């Protein structure tokens, strides 16, 4: 018996050393090649003419306008989609109604439709050639090639992120805790604030961060509906493309680097929150 015990000195779930090394090595090489190297290249190209070049590029009026536009759009689209996402996830997870499967499919629509098509749909709907568009223009409300159009396109493209994060979490948690709060005399609103919201806060945070990253980075839909008017409707991603097409590589990569920095900042924020609340996170994850 002892021979059998000795012939298995390592746990059954542990692989031989060379296999582990190979797997870890493969993962490191992949991450370095496909994630880290491009990021480094962006920053290296931006700094090709030193910090002065970056500062000069970012103080161009067109670049400043694009940064302002992107930040404004994200600041409006993300909170709106957080609210819509919570409402949609709430309806799907906590209630049974006819057409629920259809609603879930509908939420996924922006994922399955190409962003360019989404932009085109909005142009066709609100453009001068449609009845609605003609009426809007006659009443001095511009949507296509203007701020509202960019906002609508961003809202459409980023809609699923929050809802998609929340639905599985809310379904898994069920209704019991909410029902308990109600039997204890809490109102519906109080139940939502003190029971539902705290239970979904991490999923909500991830959803919001993903939504924010996409809102700032969206290119296709925005490119179609904004018309890419410099200084007016250009966003950071569309401005990067225009600079690049004009062989202004330092300007293009400087703006791209700012975009990358914003993304890294959101990730850092997420990690920081997770680290600070590690105890609570571990304590509340499961019963």
């Amino acid at each position, binding site marked *: 018996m002892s021979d059998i015990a000795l012939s298995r000195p390592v746990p059954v779930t542990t692989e031989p050393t060379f296999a582990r090394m190979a797997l870890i090595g493969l993962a490191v090489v992949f991450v370095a090649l496909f994630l880290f190297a491009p990021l480094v290249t962006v920053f290296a190209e931006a700094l090709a003419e030193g910090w002065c070049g970056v500062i000069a590029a970012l103080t161009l009026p067109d670049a400043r306008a694009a940064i302002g536009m992107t930040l404004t759009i994200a600041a409006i689209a993300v909170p709106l989609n957080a609210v819509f996402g919570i409402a949609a996830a709430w309806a799907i997870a906590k209630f049974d109604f006819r057409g629920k499967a259809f609603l879930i499919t509908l939420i996924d629509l922006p994922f399955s439709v190409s962003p360019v098509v989404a932009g085109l749909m909005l142009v066709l709907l609100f453009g001068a050639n449609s009845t609605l568009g003609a009426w809007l223009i006659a009443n001095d409300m511009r949507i296509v090639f203007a701020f509202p159009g960019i906002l609508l396109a961003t809202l459409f493209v980023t809609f699923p992120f929050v809802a998609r994060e929340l639905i599985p979490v809310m379904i898994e948690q*069920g209704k*019991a*805790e909410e*029902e*308990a*709060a*109600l*039997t*204890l*005399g*809490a*109102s519906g609103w*109080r139940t939502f604030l*003190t*029971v539902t919201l*705290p*239970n979904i806060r991490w999923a909500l945070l991830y959803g919001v961060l993903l939504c924010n990253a996409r809102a700032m980075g969206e290119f296709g839909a925005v490119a179609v509906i904004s018309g890419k008017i410099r200084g007016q409707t250009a966003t950071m991603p569309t401005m990067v493309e225009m600079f690049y097409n004009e062989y202004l590589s330092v300007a293009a990569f400087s703006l791209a680097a700012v975009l990358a920095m914003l993304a890294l900042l959101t990730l850092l924020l997420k990690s920081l929150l997770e680290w600070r609340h590690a105890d*609570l996170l571990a*304590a*509340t*994850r*499961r*019963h």
Partner: protein
Amino acid sequence: MNIEIEELAKEFGTSRALHPVSLSIPSGALIALLGPSGSGKTTLLRILAGLEFPTSGRVLFGGQDATGLSVQERSAGFVFQSYALFRHMTVFENVAYGLRARPRKERPTEAEIGRRVNRLLDLIQLPDIGARYPNQLSGGQRQRVALARALAIEPRMLLLDEPFGALDAKVRKELRQGLREIHDRTGLTTVFVTHD
């Protein structure tokens, strides 16, 4: 408070969840609803708590028609099968939840809430667990915390859904004894659902 159930029935779509049932529960009684799963015991309990509404029939609490009362107005202490403790709150906050949820005028002071919660934790013989989270407790402890939380609102009746279902035989026996003692002490009309 006595509970009268008159020809109460519930249908979900086309399926019958509860056949018409009439029952009279005298004030201060300790009643077990016994039957196989799927026989509508839990549905009946949820209708009493106001979590479901009957398709037909009436419920009277203390002689007053309570069929249309909202779940908050029922003031029924409900212990869920899965306990449904608030996982992001400490045991203390769980038990205090019902008191804090009261309208501002009826809400006890912070000191009073503390006193009441500690008295309840003494009652369920777990005086030192106020600072813990539900996932740091055993099944039997969670069950007792859920009971304390339901008692904290000074309910008009106590409803328990399969209170001993998920527990081993020894703990079950202790809890059954504990429930009887608490019932004897509070004199609350108590209805619980069980299949054994």
